């Protein structure tokens, strides 16, 4: 019995090599994902019927020689694989292309519109967390009660709600019938605001116009609810199930036996561990938020990246679509990578899973 008992992996100190290998593995997965996205972004838009040159010149049509000239100018006369290689080559040089409609660099257009999307997504995430977390915890604590069943029923409905329909419904009720919220836009047109940061809540504070901030905030209410509904439902359900798992652990029973206050047990001991899977869920919701932003921005005439992408698809603006999709994908990949890394840091079992 004199042998040394191996320590639980979670109690071992971090071996530097393991942490390094973990980061390298995660980064290594990003590279093929990135190239996969370039293939999808490049070829998908080309599968949609419609000639970008014909759409550019409109119903009047275009002389064949002019059509050929423009095809050559944009490089669309080359074989697809050559176009793709050119696209990747430019990407690696930091060039996301130039819109064939506005003739502006895609990156510059994206960066101009991105703050509007970030602002909306951030508010939607905040809304989802502010409601989803406490509701999920309460549902777990009151498991099997009417509250639990009601919350889970509502969250399932929220998760299944088509964004377009949900948005229109809220507009008709809150804007049309009750007149409580504005229908669409980012701020009342009465406020003359030149974008400084691109974030309307901040820009409206920077100008000396009483009521501008309030107007910007009121314009955010409905889009935030619409975009935040699905993440809210997911977070609430994930929090509930994670909490239920943790609440059944021995150490929680021990804490109860020791006579700790229930609020302390739930808030400190249970929640800390239950939040680990929830953080991953939040990371995954970035993709959901950006995808949802496309529909939400279209409904609410929100001048963000989603609205711009939809318009670019309608106009077969290949560079904008492929550059825009790639930039959005890069953001989702980066956020997921950061979440992975953060998750690895806070939960050592993940790092060791690969090794074992």
């Amino acid at each position, binding site marked *: 019995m004199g042998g040394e008992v191996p320590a639980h992996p979670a109690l071992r100190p971090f071996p530097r090599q393991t942490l390094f290998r973990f980061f390298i593995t995660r980064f290594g997965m990003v590279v093929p994902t990135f190239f996969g996205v370039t293939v999808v972004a490049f070829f998908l838009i080309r599968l949609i019927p*419609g000639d970008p040159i014909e759409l550019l*010149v*409109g119903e*009047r049509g275009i002389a064949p020689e002019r059509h050929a000239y*423009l095809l050559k100018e944009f490089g669309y006369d080359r074989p697809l694989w050559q176009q793709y290689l050119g696209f990747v080559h430019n990407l690696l040089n930091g060039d996301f292309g130039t819109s064939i409609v*506005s003739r502006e660099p895609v990156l510059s257009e994206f960066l101009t519109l991105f703050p509007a999307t970030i602002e909306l997504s951030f508010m939607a995430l905040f809304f989802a967390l502010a409601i989803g977390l406490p509701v999920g915890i309460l549902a777990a604590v009151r498991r099997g009660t009417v509250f639990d069943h009601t919350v889970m029923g509502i969250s399932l409905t929220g998760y299944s709600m088509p964004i377009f329909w949900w948005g229109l419904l809220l*507009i008709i009720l809150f804007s049309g019938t009750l007149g409580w919220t504005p229908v*669409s836009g980012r701020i009342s047109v009465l406020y003359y605001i030149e974008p400084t940061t691109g974030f309307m809540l901040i820009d409206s504070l920077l100008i000396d116009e009483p009521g501008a901030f309030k107007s910007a905030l009121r314009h955010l209410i409905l889009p935030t609810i619409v975009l935040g509904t699905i993440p809210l439902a997911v977070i609430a359900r994930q929090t509930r199930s994670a909490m239920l798992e943790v609440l059944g652990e021995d150490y929680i029973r021990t804490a109860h036996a020791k006579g700790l206050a229930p609020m302390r047990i739930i808030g400190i001991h249970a929640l800390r561990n239950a939040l680990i899977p929830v953080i991953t869920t939040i990371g995954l919701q970035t993709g959901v938020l950006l995808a949802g932003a496309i529909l939400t921005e279209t409904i609410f*005439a929100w001048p963000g990246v989603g609205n*711009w992408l939809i318009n670019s698809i309608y106009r077969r603006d290949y560079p904008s679509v492929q550059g825009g999709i790639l930039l959005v994908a890069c953001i989702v990949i980066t956020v997921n990578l950061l979440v992975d890394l953060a998750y690895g840091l806070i939960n050592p079992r993940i790092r060791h899973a690969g090794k074992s």
Partner: protein
Amino acid sequence: MAKQPSLACRHIERKLRERPRVRIRYFLLAILFWAAFTGGAAAQVKTLVFCSEESPDTLNPQLSFRQATFDATSRQVYDRLVAYEPGKAEIVPALATSWHVSEDGLRYEFRLRPHVPFHKARHFTPSRPLAAEDVVFSFMRQLDPRHPYHQVSGGTYPYFQGLGLPKIIKSVTAGDNGTVIFELDSPYPAFLSILVLDFASILSAEYADAMLAAGTPERVDMEPVGTGPFQMVQHQRDALIRYVAHPDYWRGKTPLDNLVFTITPDATIRFQKLRDRECHVVANPDPADIPAMTLDGDVKLARQVGMDVGYLAFNTTKPPLNDPRVRRALAMAIDREAILEKIYQGIGRPATTMAPAGLWSRGKPPPPPAADPEGAKRLLAKAGVTKLEIDIWPSPVGKTYLPDARRTAEMIHEDWLKIGVDSRIIVTTGRDFIKQTMVGQHDAALFGWIAETLDRALFLAPILGCEAAKSGANRSYWCNGKFDRLLDEAARAKNPSERETLYALAQAVLDEEVPILPIAHSINFTPMRNEVVNYRTSPLGGHYFYGVDLK
């Protein structure tokens, strides 16, 4: 939606900061506004909000073909040499006060209006009023591939090139004493009508030179400077466009002080914004919302019959459709009233002639004849046709003048079955439809056509003329020398009543031959709040806010 006084003053102060050279003018304006507001008078800054459906793709109308772009640019910011008299087909002076056409029709000389000021922009203050150089620049940029501005912003001029003007206009030069001379390669009777179009807007050559010298020529297409009733002061892509009234507009300052376009792509949302007082006027309503709009006490609807037509073209090269009696019989069997009721649902008007009536004819058009299947059967028998099967190609893209061609084809199929004629409906993609019908694959095709100018010859010739039959644009492939001659004579006629007679004769040829059957003209609706006054619809569509007021 009127602004608060303090807000208006701050807005003007901001403008003052942006444009130091015009401080005195704005300072005086600010004092006037301030005096009006603090005096407790009813005068307020008038801001009209227009909910448009899409963002302009460019801010230079020469580079686009989209109505949304024209609404945002040429119809508010720019003027053209000539214009239509509001609500009429008569061409009246605009930036040109008069013009002279040479006997051979190859030389047009325009005398320019003096003292017409251009707008000021953030990076440009004009030093002179409108001059011949501006007109020369505006056209030569589009015409001359070697012009320094030709390739700026892409070098594609859809309208100018689409109308074939590079082969029609030989030169545009400045004449003496404020005149501009257009030399043509061949006579073009509808040339004046062409100059009314949006692409013919007059830009500032001085601004273009300044931007070229500064190394930013593309700014001309992003920050427009025109002579129009409104000057653009802010453009947030896919969000809004803000204009202020041009105080020195040559026709007099417009009653509105500010105009705002908010880009709202969804038609249902546009209607909600109208009800919620977030918009005064909205573009392109959803036909499904029209009944609700009619019932809303705060909303009124402006109606205008569109200068367009939805029609069925018979391929007159394919027997037995080359026999006018067969075409007439097939036309007689179609219940157009039912199509209007089921397909157009209140957004169409029956078409009895190809060219929409109203502006183009003095009399009221007769109602379309009711369907006559028995008469059709008799006529078919007379033509010796016993068994007939027809391929109908419906246009795959829905338009206001033909909202659902496929369902229309289904109704026609039912009508023809009643007279013993069978038909197949051929459904294709948009591109295939255009290509296949242009080479005459169809027996009959459901199509539509929209006027670009109020010139009748320009409306009819591209879909019914012999030249169009050769190119395939005339889907009936019908070529009638008498009809072409009558159109040509009418286009050249100087006397309106003589022109009217010639067009009536041309229509009679059409009625006799029935190469195509007109079905309906669209009705365009513009919903607006009751407080909007003096809004006038344009027969060619589009939204013009000069002269519009808020009560």
